[in-house]
């Protein structure tokens, strides 16, 4: 049983997280040996950056202004990302579990132990009792390899990835509406739009680089509509702000469409020629009058009308959304109702006209394309479709019946571990203890595993439960590609070799496959060979990379898929000429009635709880909680609440408050601000243990995409003690006293 054997303090002392800083007094102008043009290791923009390398260590960065997407711009995470390299917490050798924590071991021992663990679980409980969890921060090469490894070496159906916690609702909605899962436009279309809707996206903090794109549009006269329960930095300067009540997004989109139809702001010709099922939507939204919609959403009727008045007749427009509408038990439905707003106007597939989901993870797009999802095979193929199965079975040289069927999704895998159905787990770049809702249940599940191995470069909170930890590679230690939020496949370059006795991740996977007797399927000597294979495997599939090579990607600073032939330039903008990817070439409207979240407020738990990110932290914080400057910028989670609510609860700024839901409680300082709805509190989720917002979130899943409902549940809030810190003066510092 995988219970912890050491105290929290001991794990932190030995493995971190400990914040790393630049040397005192700066880098002393050390001349680097080389500047490596690569990309940031964090979000889905994948900003171009040049890493300064000296003596096989990354010692800083230099902006890469020639890379067209960010032109040298970076957020604070990108600026300090280099400090993850040469970090005191870095795992430099495989670890093996002992009765007193971990001991460093050699690769032979770690592999032998893992093969033994896998065999023991699978012989006793069946192949599917051993699961694989991957991640969307990894390269396309690794995403492909993870899928192949699980299906051929482990022969388990149960492989999924942490992208399941992120944007899968958008992915399924995109496939249902357009027949393909990719942002429809390159970001260069944003500044050409005359109206932009940003729905459920804290763009300024989670995707800072796109701020400039949005404001270039505004400079050219565009109107910006922001829809969010909080006034985020990008909302501050919006032309129209709709403070939607958590969990009501599909109603709001239906309400806006109601006004558009009433005023005749639909493109009937486009609808007739290029879409299906608009009649069902037209019928459905009849009852979503502004007044009806106001009552559900908490957004004033006049603002709903104003949004329709801006969006409806616009000449060009872009609709962008993120987790705010996706992290719901109706995440897919929310996205589809928003897509209706785009399709009804016909403004898609043209310069300045389109749609996109803002991908949160580094390879959020590519990570969901090449087969590390439980329902997917390479090339975006469907594991349940006979012709797709046959293509990949033949490509890999395995009999089709031996290819596992669709397995469980990420949260369901944790559920199945908890139920005792899955007994073994191999996890890479995934920290479910922090990132999956209802974290106490995740902890109990981990404790039940009979065998657990992790591949990671730092010992995450989850990895503490492992029997074997393989010291894997940082992004800058390997070659590969990632596909950004706009569908642009870009090239990552290795800057340094893995620290100590750590190895590149793909070598670890391949070696494990070899030890499992599947060597012939994993003959790679470098990442490029994996890429060549994944590109070939994607030929003719829904997601076609077959015309891409490393050389071509580098020469063009990225290639947009589909790129089906060597002489094909790639496809920055999808759906030109109203051609969609469903077999009939049409897009599909979806009529979804608003329905309530899985857990709504009531007299016992009267306040909405919602969660999200801050600009200086990334996902479960495994990397960013180890970078000093980023830790100092936002050291611990705070509970944002409106003064109106705070007053009713007798809470002052920085008082210590307890937030309780049906799952558990979290105790943090309050941050009393007028920028959040008074019926809602917000806590960011990047921290573990007692500071984990996911102690209180609900593990309720969208039935279509299986994304969890991070963005809404019901809580109560009470004061625990007065503030420990002297509150900063509440007087406006600009007021002269």
């Amino acid at each position: 049983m995988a219970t912890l054997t050491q105290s929290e303090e001991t794990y932190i002392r030995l493995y971190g997280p400990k914040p790393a800083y630049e040397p005192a007094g700066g880098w002393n102008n050390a001349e680097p040996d080389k500047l490596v043009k690569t990309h940031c290791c964090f979000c889905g923009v994948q900003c171009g950056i040049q890493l300064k390398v000296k003596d096989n260590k990354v010692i800083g960065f230099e902006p890469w202004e020639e890379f067209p997407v960010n032109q040298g711009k970076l957020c604070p995470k990108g600026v300090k990302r280099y400090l993850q390299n040469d970090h005191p917490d870095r795992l430099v050798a495989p670890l093996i579990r002992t009765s007193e924590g971990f001991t460093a071991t050699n690769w032979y021992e770690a592999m032998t132990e893992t093969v033994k663990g896998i065999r023991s679980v699978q012989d006793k409980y069946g192949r599917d009792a051993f699961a694989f969890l991957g991640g969307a921060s990894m390269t396309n090469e690794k995403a492909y390899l993870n899928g192949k490894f699980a299906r051929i070496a482990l022969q388990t159906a149960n492989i999924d990835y942490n992208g399941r916690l992120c944007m899968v609702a958008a992915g399924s909605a995109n496939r249902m509406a357009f027949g393909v899962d990719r942002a429809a436009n390159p970001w260069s279309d944003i500044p050409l739009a005359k109206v932009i809707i940003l729905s459920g996206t804290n763009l300024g903090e989670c995707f800072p680089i796109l701020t400039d794109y949005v404001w270039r549009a505004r400079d050219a006269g565009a109107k910006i509509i922001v829809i969010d329960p909080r006034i985020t930095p990008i909302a501050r300067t919006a032309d129209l702000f709709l403070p939607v009540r958590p969990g009501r997004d599909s109603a709001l989109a239906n309400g806006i469409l109601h006004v558009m139809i009433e005023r005749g702001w639909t493109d009937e010709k486009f609808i007739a020629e290029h879409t299906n099922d608009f009649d069902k939507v037209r019928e459905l939204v009849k009852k979503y009058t502004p007044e009806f919609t106001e009552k559900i959403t908490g957004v004033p009727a006049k603002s709903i009308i104003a949004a329709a008045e801006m969006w409806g007749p616009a000449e060009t427009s872009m609709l962008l959304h993120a987790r705010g509408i996706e992290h719901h038990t109706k995440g897919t439905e929310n996205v589809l109702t928003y897509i209706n707003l785009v399709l009804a106007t016909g403004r898609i597939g043209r310069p300045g006209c389109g749609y996109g989901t803002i991908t949160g993870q580094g390879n959020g797009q590519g990570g969901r394309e090449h087969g590390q999802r439980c329902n997917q095979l390479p090339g975006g193929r469907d594991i349940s479709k006979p012709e797709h199965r046959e293509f990949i079975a033949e490509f890999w040289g395995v009999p089709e019946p031996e290819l596992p069927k669709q397995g469980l999704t990420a949260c369901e895998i944790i559920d199945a571990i908890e139920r005792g159905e899955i007994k073994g787990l191999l996890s890479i770049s995934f920290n479910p203890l922090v990132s999956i809702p209802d974290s106490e249940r995740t902890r109990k599940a981990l404790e039940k595993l009979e065998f657990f191995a992790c591949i990671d470069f730092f010992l995450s909170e989850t990895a503490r439960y492992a029997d074997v930890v393989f010291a894997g590679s940082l992004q800058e230690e390997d070659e590969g590609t990632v596909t950004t939020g706009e569908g642009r496949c870009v090239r990552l370059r290795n800057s340094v070799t893995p620290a100590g006795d750590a190895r590149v991740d793909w070598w670890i996977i391949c070696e494990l496959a070899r030890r499992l007797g599947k060597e012939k399927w994993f003959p790679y000597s470098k990442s490029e060979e994996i890429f060549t294979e994944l590109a070939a495997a994607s030929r003719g599939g829904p997601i076609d990379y077959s015309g891409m090579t490393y050389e071509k990607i580098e020469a063009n600073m990225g290639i947009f898929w589909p790129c089906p032939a060597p002489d094909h330039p790639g496809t920055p903008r999808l759906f030109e000429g109203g051609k969609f990817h469903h077999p009939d070439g049409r897009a599909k409207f979806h009529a979804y009635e608003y329905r309530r979240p899985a857990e709504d407020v009531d007299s016992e738990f009267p306040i909405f709880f919602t969660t999200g990110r801050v600009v200086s932290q990334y996902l479960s914080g495994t990397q960013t909680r180890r970078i000093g400057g980023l830790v100092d910028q936002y050291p611990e989670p705070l509970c944002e609440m409106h003064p109106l609510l705070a007053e009713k609860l007798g809470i002052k700024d920085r008082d210590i408050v307890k937030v309780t839901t049906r799952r558990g409680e979290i105790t943090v300082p309050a941050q009393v601000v007028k920028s959040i709805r008074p019926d809602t509190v917000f806590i960011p989720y990047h921290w573990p243990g007692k500071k984990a917002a996911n102690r209180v979130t609900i593990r309720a899943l969208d039935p279509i995409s299986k994304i969890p409902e991070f963005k809404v549940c019901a809580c109560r809030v009470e004061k625990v003690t007065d503030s420990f810190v002297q509150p900063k003066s509440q007087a406006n510092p600009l007021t002269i006293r």
Partner: protein
Amino acid sequence: MSGALNGNEFFLDPSRCIGCQACVQACGECGTHRGQPMIHLEYVHRSTGVQTAPVVCMHCEDPTCARVCPADAIKQDDHGVVHSAAKPRCVACSNCVIACPFGVPKMKVELDLMMKCDMCYDRTSVGKKPMCATVCPSGALYYGPRNYIEKYRCEQPLNEFQFGRQTVRTKVNMMVSPELKALPFEVLDFLPWEGKDFDPFELTRTGAPDAASGAIWDDLPVSSNAASTPCATHCTCHEPTSV
């Protein structure tokens, strides 16, 4: 003096600032800054809103900080860039800190030295942009030709400020909007009835619209997937292709 570095100028637009601190983090990375960020970025007043204000040295034509320095430690170079105090001369008296009308210089006690933004002269003097203005993701800090600003920005640059009887002309431009309007920051202003009498517990009252009681919206289906009963793995209620 308003002549620029290779025709480039610095433009500061707090209205665009998203408070991300990329500038602060990057400033400390600049080769000559000894690991110290010299740009200041603060919330104007976080309780009331998310507006933040980045402060760089305005590089005055006739710098007050230099004029009040008893040790003649603050120098202005041929480009008009006003530098940090020279380490051999600075007596750490903080006259400059008190005198600067923009609140820019800071006394670094641990170094016994006044340090301030020097427009990354090590970078700008060799044709690069200052670190902060290179990385700024929102365009709040912009370094480049004036004609770009004039062509693409709706705000206008201003570089003359009045402090009492003192007129201060600066090398750095502050962007101001010709159509100044109060930017909204209070969420109540955007709620129905401008939030008047807004009850945060409204939905928990019996008979409230869209509440758990469902009183008014009985025709709306309740979520079919409460926490305890998620769809089966291979559920038949949805197309398998759509996972």
